[in-house]
């Protein structure tokens, strides 16, 4: 049984302007000790997915459908009291901007010890020692001195390390990292990624790495989910996705990375802008920007198609290819029924 099973998750935000369908029916699994990457543009729903799992959606957000099973236990609909025991304890999350994610009026020590005291049986002294141990683990020097300091005395990279320490203090089964390096300098980015890799090997927790940076995916992840406009376009192992992308959007992403081979050539961005989540039209959400779009793409969303056991894509192009090489049989136009 997988550690985390997400089935047909739907999350919407009910704003004054209407219902924003941020996550529109996604399904994936996470196994113990594996690193899963979620990649997509801003607005693709990747952060909302994470917040849905942790159930820390902002005011107007609600999970309106689907299931999230953690270790066999259903999370959607459980009481807040039960969820509090899981947050920071069994599932932890670190956020994008370390500069604003720590409370400026509490010491680092206080914030570290808070989670430990909340979720474990340790007394204050033991919690203190555990906190110092965690700081050492994330390579913060002079940990005892640091415990008494305030966040504004730390640099961005150090604050992110503290966040990681806070998240791992209770030995969670899953660590969710929501764009942890986006707000940091490039050199610090590399350090943090390296730290997370080594911690993963040491402690063995599963990680969900959310990012828009394909380089990070390549360095850290075993499997990848590509999201666009609240749906999953394509999912599979890192090798499959990188070397054999089967969704037009993923192909576009791969094409837009400058590599040594493409040196001297024009960069190929994906044209157009993302779709309006307030008024989702019928059809594939990527169709307006897709050069290879077909008429059916503007009329209906594709069904997920397994390219092999490690790779699934939701793109009409694959179905067309399937039709062309005979693996899929079409029965002409009859009324569409859900089989």
């Amino acid at each position, binding site marked *: 049984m997988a550690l985390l099973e997400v089935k047909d998750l739907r999350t919407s935000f009910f704003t004054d302007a209407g219902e924003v369908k941020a996550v529109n029916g996604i399904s994936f699994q996470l196994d113990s000790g594996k690193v899963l990457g979620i990649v997509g543009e801003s607005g693709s729903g990747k952060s909302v997915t994470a917040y849905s799992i942790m159930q820390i959606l902002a005011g107007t957000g609600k999970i309106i459908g689907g299931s999230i099973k953690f270790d066999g236990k259903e999370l959607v609909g459980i009481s807040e009291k039960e969820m509090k025991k899981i947050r920071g304890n069994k599932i932890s999350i670190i956020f994008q901007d370390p500069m604003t994610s720590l409370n400026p009026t509490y010491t680092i020590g206080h914030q570290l010890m808070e989670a430990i005291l909340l979720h474990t049986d340790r007394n204050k002294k033991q919690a203190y020692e555990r906190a110092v141990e965690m700081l050492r683990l994330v390579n913060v020097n002079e940990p005892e001195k640091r415990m008494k300091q305030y966040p504004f005395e730390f640099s961005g990279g150090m604050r992110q390390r503290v966040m990681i320490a806070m998240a791992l203090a209770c030995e969670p089964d899953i660590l969710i990292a929501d764009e942890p390096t986006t707000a940091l300098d490039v050199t610090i980015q590399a350090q943090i990624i390296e730290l997370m890799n080594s911690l993963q090997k040491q402690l063995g927790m599963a990680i969900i790495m959310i990012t828009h940076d394909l380089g990070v995916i390549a360095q850290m992840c075993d499997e990848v989910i590509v999201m666009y406009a609240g749906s999953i376009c394509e999912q599979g192992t890192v090798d499959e996705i990188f070397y054999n992308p089967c969704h037009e959007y993923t192909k576009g992403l791969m094409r837009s990375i400058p590599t040594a081979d493409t040196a001297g050539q024009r960069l190929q961005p994906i044209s157009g802008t993302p779709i309006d989540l307030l008024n989702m039209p019928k059809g594939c959400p990527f*169709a*307006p920007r897709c050069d290879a779009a077909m*008429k*059916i793409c503007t009329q209906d969303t594709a069904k997920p198609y397994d390219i092999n056991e490690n790779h699934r894509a939701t793109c009409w192009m694959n179905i067309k290819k399937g039709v062309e090489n005979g693996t899929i*049989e079409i029965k002409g*136009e009859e009324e569409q029924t*859900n089989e």
Partner: protein
Amino acid sequence: MDIKKNPLSMHINVDSFLPASDEDKAYMVKMRPSSTFFKDGVKRLLKNKVAVVSFFIIVIITLSSIILPFFWPYGYEQQLGNKFPYPVDNSYSNLKPFEYGETEKARMEAGEKVFPHIFGTDAQGRDYFIRVVYGTRISLAVGFFASIIVLIIGMLIGSISGYFGGVIDLVLMRIVDVIYSLPDMLMVILLAAVLNVTLGDAIDKSFLKGIGGNIISLFIVFALLYWVSMARLVRGQILSLREQEYVLASKAAGAKGGWIIRKHLIPNCVSVIFISTALQIPSAIFTESYLSFLGLGVNAPMPSLGSLANDALNGIQSYFYRLLIPAVVVSLIVLSLNLFGDGLRDAFDPKLND
């Protein structure tokens, strides 16, 4: 949605696999119409019901205060029982609303139509309704003109300071600091009292007699003290404009840079300054009525809402409505102006919304 791993059979029309045309795609993307900063703001403002209602209240009050005196049969200083050379008729003092004095009653019995005293009369037999209207006029005029004075002086000094910078800026801002830290009410009262005494004689001889020494003093005091916030604001706006220009120029944008400034930054500056002025008006009206209430405002017989309230304090037992009416009117004016100003700010400066 049931996930089918390998749809071995599907119901699809083969033609659907033909490439999609641009028209096919176009329906999926609905563009929202773009509009200017000003139009956006006005739209937001109109959605704010409280602000719209407040605006109408202000307009109605202002129009009445301007128009009514023209066709009202009574003057604000007209003591109805005191027509020279007839003996003083006390029946006109302290009439309750819709009561009439002796001679008026006589005229009515003779078949004449006499315009009613809607709010009665005061202790000197003056029609109270028209006095309230005049009081409103004074309050509104003071509020408006004081704000204009503050705007002009503040803009002048703020622009000079911001544009020239250097020593001029330094000196001006130090002066601003000191004036800003002065306790304004005290200075206002003091200066108003003194100016009234010193300039009072001079004013009485000139064309400004109708307005009264105290009000002139009030304007002078406003001119001397209240421009500082506006100056700081304008200076800040000019400094930020300069910074944007510098940055754009260094990016060699040329004409395009100027366009960006004109289209986005200047409307923003203007709106900030406009809103600040708009919110200055209720503050000025409040100051004027406060001073008048203390007896330091307009000169008798010219009424002000504050002085009317002050006069009514003595008769509060028997004639409570004489206090209530100016109180309600001034409260309504200040409240409506504040709510409208708040609405303006929410509409045109959405970064500050709650």
